[in-house]
């Protein structure tokens, strides 16, 4: 058993205090990092759910959550290119669909998608399962993870959308993002009939969802499409569109800096706590270290013991914080309808930050041990 470990467990109440101190700092970082990931995931999940390799949208479209239609004929032109298996239109709107909660009669803005039920664009399993039902006029699928005040989670059979009675044929699971509280999916016909005025023009679509033939490179097809199509549309591979959206959210939203600030503060707090812990440990054990030095152990060995001990301290704080954060992610995710979940990225980032803060503070505190003069200590 290494000396560092025995040092660590020698004083149980102190171990508990330091684990709790470091653990809460880690928890703070994990929550901030988790929120940041959830923020981006919530706005990217809908793009991830599109069943396509290449996506075409108006060149003017600056973020996914805005309507910017382009002529459907452009998609017909795209379909003629080699290497393309299918081209399917998606109608989408974020500003003009008003859902009336069937339980309390209140009206809310929702996000709406429309597609041809014979040419599905979403890979959400429940949407695919129920898509044929959408062929009936004024039939919709609703998001059971939508914000509760919409009443979509209570399985209504009927509701009103833009003043028209619609039948609810099923539901799916997507969840809100920071712009939309809920989502309604319907056929392209229902979509255009519910949108009055120029918005309901079926010859204008918001997104072209393209699948390439098996074995064909999507990037190359994307390049060919870019050359063949008019410059009023922009062509993205799916990862490119996800990146485009992520960059937009990072540039304009405050989420990045807010959560980064929270994480940094957590890191500094953790560093202080761990410095305090290490410094106190070292002060208490100074005579022992001095003895080790006196009987011939080198400074390098002592340094290693101190760093090992800091590493153990980090782990003892990190493990319970990691477990607790999974619980908190689940609870807060349910409450806030956020896609908060533990990921390899969060695990590794938080572990790295924890080790970093504990080791840095140990290096800062260790000077005392190295300089300890056995003769002075006693």
């Amino acid at each position, binding site marked *: 058993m290494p000396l560092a470990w025995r040092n660590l467990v020698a004083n149980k109440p102190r171990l508990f205090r330091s684990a709790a101190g470091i653990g*809460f700092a880690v928890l703070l970082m994990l929550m901030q990092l988790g929120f940041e990931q959830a923020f981006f995931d919530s706005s990217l999940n809908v793009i991830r759910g599109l069943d396509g390799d290449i996506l075409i949208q108006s060149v*003017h479209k600056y973020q996914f959550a805005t309507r910017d239609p382009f002529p459907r004929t452009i998609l017909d032109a795209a379909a003629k290119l080699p290497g393309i298996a299918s081209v399917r239109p998606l109608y989408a709107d974020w500003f003009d669909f008003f859902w009336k909660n069937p339980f309390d009669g209140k009206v809310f803005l929702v996000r709406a998608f429309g597609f041809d039920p014979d040419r599905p664009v979403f890979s959400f399993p429940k949407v695919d399962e129920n898509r044929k039902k959408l062929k009936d006029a004024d039939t919709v699928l609703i998001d059971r993870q939508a914000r509760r005040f919409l009443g979509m989670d209570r399985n209504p059979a009927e509701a009103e959308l833009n003043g028209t009675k619609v039948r609810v044929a099923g539901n799916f699971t997507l969840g809100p993002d920071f712009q939309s509280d809920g989502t309604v999916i319907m056929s392209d016909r229902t979509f255009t009939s519910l949108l009055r005025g120029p918005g309901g023009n079926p010859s204008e679509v918001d997104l072209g969802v393209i699948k390439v033939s098996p074995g064909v490179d999507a990037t190359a097809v994307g390049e060919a499409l870019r050359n063949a199509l008019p410059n009023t549309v922009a062509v993205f591979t799916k990862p490119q569109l996800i990146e485009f959206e992520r960059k937009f959210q990072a540039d*304009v939203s405050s989420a990045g800096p807010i959560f980064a*600030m929270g994480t940094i*503060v957590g890191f500094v707090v953790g560093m202080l706590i761990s410095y*305090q812990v290490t410094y106190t440990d070292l002060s208490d054990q100074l005579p022992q270290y001095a003895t080790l030095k006196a009987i011939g152990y080198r400074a390098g060995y002592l340094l290693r013991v101190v760093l090992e001990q800091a590493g153990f301290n980090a782990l003892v704080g990190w493990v319970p914080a990691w477990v607790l954060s999974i619980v*908190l992610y689940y609870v807060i995710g349910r409450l806030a309808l956020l896609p908060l979940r533990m990921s390899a990225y969060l695990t590794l980032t938080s572990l790295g930050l924890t080790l970093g803060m504990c080791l840095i503070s140990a290096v800062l505190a260790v000077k005392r041990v190295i300089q300890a003069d056995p003769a002075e200590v006693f």
Partner: protein
Amino acid sequence: MKVPLAWRILTYDKRRTALALIGIFMAILLVFVELGFFYAVPRGGLLLYDNMRFDLLLVSDQYEYQAQPGVFPLDRLDRLRSSAEVQQATPIYFGYAKWKGGEGGVWPDVFVIGSDPASHAFIPDSIDQQLGVLAKSDTLLVDSATRPIFGALDAGRVVEIGDRNMTIGGQYVLGTGFMGLGVVLVSVPNFAGLFEDRGASAVNLGAIVLKPGVNPDRAAADLRQASGPGTRIFTRKELDAHETAYWTTRTSVGIIFGSGLLISFVVGIMIVYQIVSTQVGRQLPQFATLKAIGYPDRSLVTTVGAMSLLIVIAGFIPALAAALGLYAIIRDQTLLPVTMSETRLFAVFGAALGMALVSALLSVGGLRRADPADVF
């Protein structure tokens, strides 16, 4: 003798005391940062209202929150204008339009606010000084916090908005809050021109200014009768509560920053406890000696209490200064109205003192048991 003794203990090992101070400083700073965020969100949602002149606000009964207010017919507002209590009733219009001149050819959505320039509905001086510009046809004022994605915001630039060419007449300083990435202000005729399908008869907000001396609560009750069905009247206080409730309960921001705040409190308590108990623990032999030579427990407890209070006070002052600096940086970076309020300042100070005292009392438990014979 307790306070001077506490002082001397603290100044004896300066390095350790400095460490404790930094710890307390960070704990308090952390709480301030999370508090700032927590309150900034509803404040951001109230930004426009905070910058408008009205005592009562007439809205549709479909009103959700500021950016989703619903519409009501203009004649509802006209009805109230004749009331003896009302000095002025101004219709305010909201709409989203495509700003067809963004960076790199994109068309970001812009939030358009329409109002009669002569009504002085908005408080900022920068708007009052440009009312003449605002009244010109096809001219707009743009909020200075409009994001770079909208391109240059220089006066004189012509931008196509919706299907209309509009000239930027100048900038005003108010902030975009949660209205969108860009906000512009136009006169009512210009608004009706931008949103032709809608015209000027469907109103989003009615800003009502009461005659001097009229009680807003009483006036609200009277006007509710007169305004007719399909509408709702808010006093300032009710509106504040409604918007705050919207942002803290209807969106996920309340839970996000609320949980951040909660954890920061726990971390703060941990730090203060850790520091105070270490300080006390280290002085155990000295305290035991004092006990042995006859000092009563009570006097030692007071010394420990004084010690922790001194540390917290000394840590609080720089933390407050740093928090104010950080708030300025956050305001700049996120455009969120993160501000300090007196209530929060004193609440955090009180909480910090409380935490310190509780930790002192907890760690003094060991002290009470300290048997001089054991310690040595």
